[in-house]
């Protein structure tokens, strides 16, 4: 077990033999096997960086290099649909390498397996790898997940977005940054998760029922944002990513440095971003720029292969502009905005300026983790982490008050976790854990406005246990979780004179999950995943009151809300007959009792600013069900086709109504050409892994909605075309990667149902992005 500390796209076995050292007459050979199918994998590009010598694996997955000098080398393996990975080793004698390539992903991105095979209890999942993160420098965290089947985005303009998985988001979606549940004001639909995707090496979406280990009260999916462990590389390594995007004239710069020393291993990652006004097909979206500066530091140290210590600190800081024309007053203003072709305040010129309405958000995280291997089969994990989330939102205000935030929240979170893992009889694994989360949320009184959500301290205490069995024919796991939550809330009355009222709530939640995977054959598997979970009402659902400027509606909580419960069932069928074809289908059905949602009321609220729509948190019985389909196949040796379809429907069972804010159905496809041969430009300069991709996306109209459920009808079906070109440029010592892509190639004018700005403006028009990546 101690040998599995590396996270590679490959599990690596080194078998060594033959021959004494002879200068420059050594051979390196090996075979690459696809882990998913157990079959040899052809067309894997193998490169020795130091001598810039490359080859491809043949039909038997074999490769070889002859007449290599003794010395230290970096071998780079790359294959379509997998991150290219480096492996450092000392060549002393003829060496044969057995390379097992994890290539079982059903999407274009490869799945990275960390350490010992631990496939998240067989939960249905999909992931984004490092290559995709690098090639989407212009995207934020949610934007990176958009192309995963079953994942959609709730947006508030072009810069603010949050992920929606199987129709659930906000309080129901847990995001784990580096193993720590992301705190902050997750309830807000116009609040992006404050995470720099560049600090991650993979982002995984777990789509099954209630992932027991990951936080309490979780009825929805889990998004894991994970940096990889620092490789055992004695040299200083790093990379620089830069991208320029024409739409918004945006610049993104990222740099990463890492090194493994005998004392400890470290990694530093920094990102800077600056965007100006975006543009739709025909006009500028004024005040939609963004600025971002992030830094993270990771440190790893181990003692005697027994105790592993991991320190992680990150800071995320952003300023986001919100379309000026979307900042409106009452229902009359909204009505006017809805009838306009282009929004109010639209200027003919571009600007980087960010003025009110805007958001200033920062998020800081410090984490200590200790893993202790008690013996070969037992481990203890102890984690303690602190987070500070600072959110200030600025509105257009009178008398110079634009510099005063209209919403100013500060949240401290302390997470502690203790986990015990035991492996026994080779196939069984037991996990027992205890998690504590203390959240301290405070409104800064500087706003001069009654707060939308009250101050509170909450204590969460959870214990969980899971038992899994990994057999040759069947895998199964069961788990349960019990949570206690105490909310200590202090609110200000809306009657005058203003007074302080206190609330004390105690909740007990229970959850359970069961997974069964049956391998029909070597190439087919069927997985059933069922879970039950309870989620107590969140503070915003109980006590919100006031004008939510972003939605220009008055939102009110209900102190009488009960805990909601849900049952989710998923059925997944995977078929991987060979390395050239895969098919994956996932059906899910989730039933809620006492589903908490923001229900628009028939009455309007009369204020001095006119009439406002009134939304109140209510409960109903609901069902959300759907289907994710994906398939990929090779056409000949150079073309890869990919097809995805997502269907989802939400129903309010009690009132026999559709659920609002459900993602529309979508169909997407792409065709990638990949050149398997390196193209020599000059003697030492080569183009490798040349790829050209055409992608298409069709998002259907949300027809499952009644006219009275929204101010305007959902936008019609739209179709987007994109194009991407990427290639590696290899020099003897260095490797560059560059890409160019066009999004919304046809400059389509469209609006998206899940973008709240659709009442005011179109989505962004055509955009070119050029990026450069340099690794050393």
């Amino acid at each position, binding site marked *: 077990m101690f040998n599995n500390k590396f996270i590679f796209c490959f599990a690596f076995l080194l078998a060594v033999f033959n021959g004494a050292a002879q200068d420059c007459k050594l051979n390196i050979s090996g075979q690459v096997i696809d882990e998913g199918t157990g079959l040899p994998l052809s067309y894997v590009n193998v490169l020795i960086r130091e001598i810039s010598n490359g080859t491809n694996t043949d039909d038997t997955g074999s490769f070889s290099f002859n007449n290599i000098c003794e010395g230290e080398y970096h071998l780079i393996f790359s294959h379509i649909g997998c991150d290219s990975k480096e492996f450092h080793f000392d060549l002393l004698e003829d060496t044969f390498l057995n390379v097992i390539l994890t290539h079982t992903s059903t999407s274009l991105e490869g799945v990275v397996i960390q350490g010992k095979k631990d496939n998240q209890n067989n939960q249905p999942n999909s992931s984004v790898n490092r290559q995709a993160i690098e090639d989407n420098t212009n995207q934020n965290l949610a934007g990176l997940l958009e192309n995963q089947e079953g994942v959609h985005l709730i947006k508030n303009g072009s810069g603010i977005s949050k992920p929606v998985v199987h129709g659930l988001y906000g309080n129901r979606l847990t995001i784990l940054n580096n193993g720590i549940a992301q705190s902050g004001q997750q309830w807000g639909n116009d609040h992006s998760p404050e995470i720099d995707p560049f600090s991650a090496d993979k982002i995984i979406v777990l789509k099954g029922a209630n992932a027991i280990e990951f936080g309490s009260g979780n009825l929805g999916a889990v998004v894991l944002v994970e940096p990889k462990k620092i490789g055992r590389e004695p040299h200083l390594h790093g990379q620089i990513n830069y991208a320029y995007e024409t739409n918004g004239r945006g610049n993104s710069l990222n740099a990463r440095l890492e090194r493994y020393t005998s004392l400890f291993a470290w990694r530093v990652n920094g990102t800077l971003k600056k965007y100006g006004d975006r543009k739709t097909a025909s006009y500028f979206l004024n005040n939609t720029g963004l600025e971002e500066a992030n830094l993270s530091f990771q440190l790893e140290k181990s003692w005697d292969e*027994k*105790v592993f210590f991991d320190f992680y600190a990150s800071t995320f800081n952003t300023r986001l502009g919100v379309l000026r024309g979307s*900042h*409106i*007053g*009452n229902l*009359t*203003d909204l009505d006017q905005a809805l009838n306009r072709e282009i929004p109010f*305040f639209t200027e003919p010129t571009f600007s980087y300026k960010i003025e009110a309405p805007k958001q200033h958000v920062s998020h800081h995280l410090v984490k200590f983790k*200790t893993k*202790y291997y*008690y013996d070969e089969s037992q481990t*203890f994990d*102890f984690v303690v982490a602190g987070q500070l989330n600072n959110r200030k939102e600025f509105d*257009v*205000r*009178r*008398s110079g*008050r634009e510099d005063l935030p209209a919403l100013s929240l500060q949240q401290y979170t*302390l997470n*502690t976790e*203790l986990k*015990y893992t035991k492996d026994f009889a080779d196939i069984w694994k037991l996990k027992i854990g205890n998690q*504590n989360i*203390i959240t*301290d949320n*405070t*409104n800064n*009184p*500087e*706003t*001069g*406005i*009654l*707060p939308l959500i*009250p*101050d*509170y*301290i909450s*204590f969460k*205490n959870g214990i969980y246990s899971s038992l899994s069995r990994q057999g040759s024919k069947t895998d199964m796991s069961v788990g349960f979780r019990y949570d206690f939550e105490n909310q*200590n809330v*202090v609110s*200000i009355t*809306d*009657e*005058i004179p*203003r007074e*302080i009222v206190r609330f004390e709530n105690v909740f007990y939640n229970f959850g359970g999950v069961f997974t069964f995977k049956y391998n029909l054959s070597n190439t087919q598997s069927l997985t059933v995943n069922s879970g039950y979970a309870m989620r107590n009402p969140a503070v915003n659902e109980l006590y919100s009151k006031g*004008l939510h400027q972003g939605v220009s509606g*008055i939102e*009110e909580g209900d102190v009488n809300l009960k805990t909601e419960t849900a049952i989710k069932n998923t059925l997944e069928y995977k078929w991987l007959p060979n390395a050239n074809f895969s098919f994956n289908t996932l059906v899910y059905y989730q039933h809620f009792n006492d589903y908490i949602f923001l229900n628009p009321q028939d009455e309007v*609220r*009369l*204020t*001095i*600013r*006119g*009439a*406002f729509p009134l939304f109140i948190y209510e409960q109903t019985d609901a069902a959300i069900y759907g289907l994710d389909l994906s398939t990929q196949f090779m056409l000949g040796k150079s073309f890869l086709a990919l097809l995805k379809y997502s269907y989802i429907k939400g129903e309010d069972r009690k009132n026999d109504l559709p659920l609002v804010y459900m993602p529309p159905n979508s169909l997407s496809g792409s065709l990638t050409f990949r050149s398997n041969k390196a193209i020599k430009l000059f003697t030492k300069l080569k183009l490798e892994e040349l790829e050209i991709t055409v992608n298409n996306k069709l998002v259907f109209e949300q027809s499952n909605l009644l006219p009275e459920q929204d101010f305007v009808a959902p936008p019609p079906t739209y179709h987007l075309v994109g194009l991407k070109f990427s290639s590696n440029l290899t020099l003897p010592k260095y490797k560059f990667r560059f890409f160019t892509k066009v999004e919304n190639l046809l400059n389509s004018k469209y609006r998206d149902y899940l973008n709240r700005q659709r009442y005011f403006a179109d989505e962004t028009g055509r955009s070119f992005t050029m990026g450069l990546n340099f690794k050393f």
Partner: protein
Amino acid sequence: MSPNATLLHLHFIFAHKLTLNKNIMNKNLVALSLILLTSLLFTNCEKDDPEIPNEEELITSLSYQLSPIGGGDIITLSFQDLDGDGGDSPLITGGILSANQSYVGSLDLMNEAGETPINILLEVVEEAEEHQVFFESNLSTVNITYGDEDANNFPLGVMTTLTTGAPDSGTLTIILRHEPNKSAAGVSEGDITNAGGETDIQVTFPIDVQ
């Protein structure tokens, strides 16, 4: 949160580390974590009282005073919502106007939520270029013209002249827009259609012309 809880927490974190360093990982750790768990369960943490924000920007009261030209009783249309957006419903008082009469109209805006009332109108006048008051009536015989200007010679609407025609009853709506486009077509004449900006005030009064 009481500092004791934090200390307690840190204490146990430290205890864990200590155990690790001494390499005597055993049942102690489990026991400790159980204590940690229970200690948290019974830690009573009270959130401090929040500071009640000073809602200086809030507008609670609007009054539109109409003085008949040539003398007579002053008529006041008023809107009052002391507790702001939520809570109790606003108090709206309409008025009875004389037919075929001209009035000098003056607007007053107050924040009466606190102990000392704040005159909001001063803020509006100070930023006259960024504000404009619009008057709309469903009675075609009721006409309002502007009696004041901002620095750019665009109307503000704090001072107005209102004239009535034949007896009838209907409504008068007063709208205050922040950051309107004052140079847009019709806006200077009091037509709100192309004004844009956002609404700071929009109140409707019942009026009777007798």
